[in-house]
Each structure stands twice: as structure tokens, then as C-alpha cells.
């Protein structure tokens, strides 16, 4: 009896994984297949990128300030406050920038995608697309995934920058460190990790691969749960909740494994 239950649960998990990866494969494959829904892509880039700018700016700025404030206590005890720029830059660019931007966008955009596609599912708009001879994955999923893949690295760069600026504010007004010294420390950190293709700092590469992957996770989680919605408005609510939970957990888990891989690849 218990074994049957485990068996059924395992089958459901495998089936869900199969569905998720099939959706991902189709959505990514359609990027290169005509017709290209360019207007939909730009609209989604606007919704995902420009629409998320506010929360990303706020999150980045305050995270940078808090990070500087907390680490200044330890660094002051060790007499090493001059390296605060290095610490902020390393943390923001490699780790906090991508993860925080990912989590913020998962909450705002992932849930939005799931709610929109879920509503379209329960009001038969997805069926209508099918009957009008349009593949819903190509029309709805591919532009959202592509827009996320493009916009999340852009949001992360902005998040990194305002986070470092937040650290600068604390370094200057709380620790009394000149801005020039702070920014020199920041650049030392960014340039210390070595270069890819002679010019691109490895820290940048690490910091941009992660949001690229997170962008895919967020949009695919939203589209997957949105398209699978059933049971009316209650189903739409469930889809949004599941999307945020799934995307947030995947971001944190995948972040760990990506960090392991990237450190192995890019360690100086």
C-alpha cells in the first residue's frame, strides 16, 4: 500500500519533470523558428525588465548599504575598513546581485506570468490559440523565456551597480572613507579574478551566467504552472504560488551548484 503510494508519487514527479523539460526544449527551440513574435518579445522585455526596475533598484541599494554596515563592524575591529569596496563588489557581483535580482523577479514576474497564462487557460484563450492554428508555446512561452534570458542579466548589472553605490554611501558617510578609495578597491576586486578573452573580467562572467540561468528558471516555472492551470480562479492562485515557490527554491539550489562549477572553472 505504502509502496504503491511512493510508486505513484515517483511517477508523477518523473512525468512533471518530463513535461517541464519538454516545454523548455520546445520554447528554446522555437527561438530560431519562424514566425518570430518580435512585438510580443519587446512587450515582454518591457514588462519583465522595465517593470522590475523599481524593486531591483531598491533591493540592490539597500542590500549594498546593509552589507557595508554589517561588514564595517567586523572590518573595523580588524582595522581593515579600506577593503570594504572589495567585499561589497565581490559579494554583489558574484552572489547577491544575481540571487536577489532572481528572487525579486521570481516574485514579481514569475507569478505574473503564471497568473496571466493561468487565466488564459481557464477562460479557454489557450484553446482559442490552438484552434486559430497557433502554437501557444511559440506565441506565449518563447517570447517570455527569451525576454527573461535577456533582461535578467541586465537587471543584475543594474542591481550590482546600485548595491555598490549603496556600499559607497555607507563607506563615505558612516566610515568616512573617500569615494575614490572605495571605488579603487571595487575595481581591484573586479579585476583580480582574471580575464576571459583578455578583456572580460571573470567576475563579470560568473555574475552574468547565473542571472541568465535564473531568467530561464523563472519564466519556465511561470509558463509551466500557468499552462497547467485547472480549476478556475482557485487554480490560478495555486499556479502563482507554486511558481514562486518552485522558482525561489530552484534559484537557491541551482545557485549553489553553479557556484561550485564556476569557481572550478574561473578560480585564479
Amino acid at each position, binding site marked *: 500500500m505504502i509502496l504503491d503510494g511512493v510508486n505513484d508519487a515517483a511517477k508523477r514527479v518523473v512525468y512533471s519533470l518530463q513535461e517541464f523539460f519538454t516545454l523548455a526544449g520546445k520554447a528554446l527551440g522555437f527561438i530560431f523558428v519562424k514566425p518570430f513574435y518580435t512585438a510580443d518579445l519587446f512587450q515582454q522585455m518591457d514588462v519583465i525588465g522595465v517593470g522590475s526596475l523599481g524593486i531591483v533598484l531598491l533591493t540592490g541599494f539597500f542590500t549594498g548599504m546593509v552589507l557595508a554596515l554589517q561588514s564595517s563592524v567586523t572590518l573595523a575591529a580588524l582595522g581593515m575598513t579600506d577593503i570594504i569596496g572589495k567585499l561589497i563588489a565581490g559579494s554583489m557581483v558574484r552572489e547577491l546581485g544575481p540571487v536577489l535580482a532572481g528572487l525579486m523577479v521570481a516574485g514579481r514576474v514569475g507569478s505574473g506570468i503564471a497568473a496571466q497564462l493561468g487565466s488564459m487557460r481557464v*477562460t479557454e484563450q489557450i484553446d*482559442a490559440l490552438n484552434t486559430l*492554428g497557433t*502554437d501557444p508555446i511559440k506565441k506565449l512561452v518563447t517570447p517570455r523565456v527569451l525576454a527573461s534570458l535577456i533582461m535578467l542579466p541586465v537587471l543584475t548589472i543594474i542591481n550590482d551597480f546600485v548595491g555598490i553605490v549603496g556600499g559607497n554611501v555607507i563607506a563615505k558617510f558612516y566610515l568616512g572613507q573617500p569615494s575614490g578609495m572605495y571605488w579603487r578597491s571595487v575595481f581591484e576586486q573586479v579585476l583580480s579574478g582574471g580575464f576571459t578573452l583578455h578583456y572580460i573580467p571573470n567576475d563579470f562572467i560568473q555574475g552574468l551566467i547565473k542571472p541568465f540561468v535564473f531568467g530561464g528558471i523563472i519564466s519556465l516555472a511561470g509558463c509551466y504552472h500557468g499552462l497547467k492551470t485547472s480549476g478556475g480562479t482557485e487554480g490560478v492562485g495555486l499556479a502563482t504560488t507554486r511558481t514562486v515557490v518552485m522558482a525561489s527554491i530552484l534559484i537557491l539550489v541551482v545557485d549553489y551548484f553553479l557556484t561550485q562549477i564556476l569557481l572550478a572553472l574561473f578560480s585564479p
Partner: protein
Amino acid sequence: MSDDEDDRRKKSDERRHPSEKDDTAMPRRARDSGRVRAAIRTELEEVAEDAADQKPVEKKGRHAAPTVISLENISLAFDEPILENVSFAAKEGETVVVVGESGTGKSTILKLILRLLVPEQGRVSIDGEDITHLTFDDALKVRQKMGMVFQGAALFDSMTVYENVAYPLREHTTLTDSEIEARVREKLEFVDLEPEKVMDQMPSELSGGMKKRVGIARGLANNPEIMLYDEPTSGLDPLTTATITYLIIKLQRELKVTSVVVSHDIRSAFRMASKIALLANKRIGFFGTPEEMTGSDDPYLREFLGGF
């Protein structure tokens, strides 16, 4: 009769099958049901006669028309059987109305014709081509021959009325913007909407009847040879129901489109149908003309019609 006796009689009456009930022993409301059914029957016959006058297809030539939609021995089950050995066909220009109780799989039939679902047994053919085993991409092409009107209209709520009706034209034709606009205006006028007033409106600004009409206009945009309707008159007031029914008849008469309509509305069904398919117990319990239906002595059929 005391109140207690009356209550007991009512309860006993509720437990019995309608056919077993004794008219004289029934409460007043139930006692009148025979007279009501007779009235309905008369009305249905009138509607059938009326519909016969309005039918778009010339009966003389109907036998010569080729079969456009054909379902042969279709069986389908999800967790439990939905359809078993279902067969019927629609010839060119005919309108087949599928009626039946709720939850009997009427809308499933439309999904099978659209090849959104694949039957476990049997085959669905469109213009003689078996679509049962088509690939997803080929099924998308076959669907371009069809227009579908959904129960809730299913208009894209992020698009204006104009964009909704223009959508299939932008997707599947090489028409210029001005040609698309002309086509959209033509289709909106066909469904008795004023293009100038509604084209820029969002679906959320429209009434239920207007949404249905825009849904019909969108379904018609590509000039399909087949139209499918899922409960086109459900949730509408009698006047709007009559308008939508009239539109479907007008569409048949003027455009000679082959149609399958899923409906609960037996009155509208009699008005628009060339043939009626009654779905009962997962099977087609009756398939024939409205006249044959009203003339049938089948107890279930009488019961079903009496329910209206």
C-alpha cells in the same frame, strides 16, 4: 387532505421515476406537467416547421453533398469512459447540433474534431482526410479550415476587438494592413456590430452577447469551411439568444458553412439544425432531422425534450 398526508405524498412522488407517476395523485404543479409537455411538443413542432422554412440547405440536393466532418466509432476515456462508439457525419453546408445532458461529453466532440484530443478508438475525418494521427504541426494546418466559437467567447483580453478579429488573418495570410482592416470591418458588420464603435474596445468593455458576436466574427475571419460552436447561446437573455441563433442561420444561409453546434438550448437547436445528434450514456442515442426527433416515440427522447 391533511398537511401530513400531503407531505408524505410529495416525498413519495419525488422518489418515483416520472414515468411511474399517477397524474391524479400528483401535486398540482406536477399534474400540470402533462399539459406543459403537450404544449412544448406543439411548440417544438412549430419551431421545426419554422426552421424548415429557414434552413439554408436545399433538401433536394442534400444527398449529393460530400461529407465534410465524419466521426466513426469514436471511443475516448480519461479516468472513466467519456464516449463509446460515437459516430455521425456532417455533409457540406449542413448544421449538426449535438444536444445532451450536462457532462455527457458534448464539448469533447468539438475537441476531437479540432484534434485537440485524440480518440482511443475510431477515426475523425475532415474532408475525407483522417486527422486522428496527424502531427501537431499538421493539426494546426487542418484547424485553419475551421472557426470555433467558445462558450465564453475566449477573446484575447489583452487585445482590442480589431486585433482579435484580425489575429487569424495576421497569422495565416499575407494580406496587407488595409486588406485586413477591410476584412475585419466586413466580418463585424456580418455579425451586426458597428465596426467604428467596437473596433477599439477591449473585450472587458463588451456585453456577453457582443463578446459572442465578436467571437463569431473572429471564427469567420479566415472564411473557414467549417464552424464549430460550443454553447453559443448559454448565459444569454432570450433576445440575445435569438440574435445569436439568427446569426448562425444567416451564416449557414449566406456562406454555406458546415457547422457543428453543441447546445443545451433545444429551441435554438430546432431552429438551426439540419440534423440533431443526442448524446446519452456516452453514445449517440439519436441522430436525425428535427422533424424525425419530434416524431420519435423513444421514451428517453420524449423525457429529454420534456425537460425543456
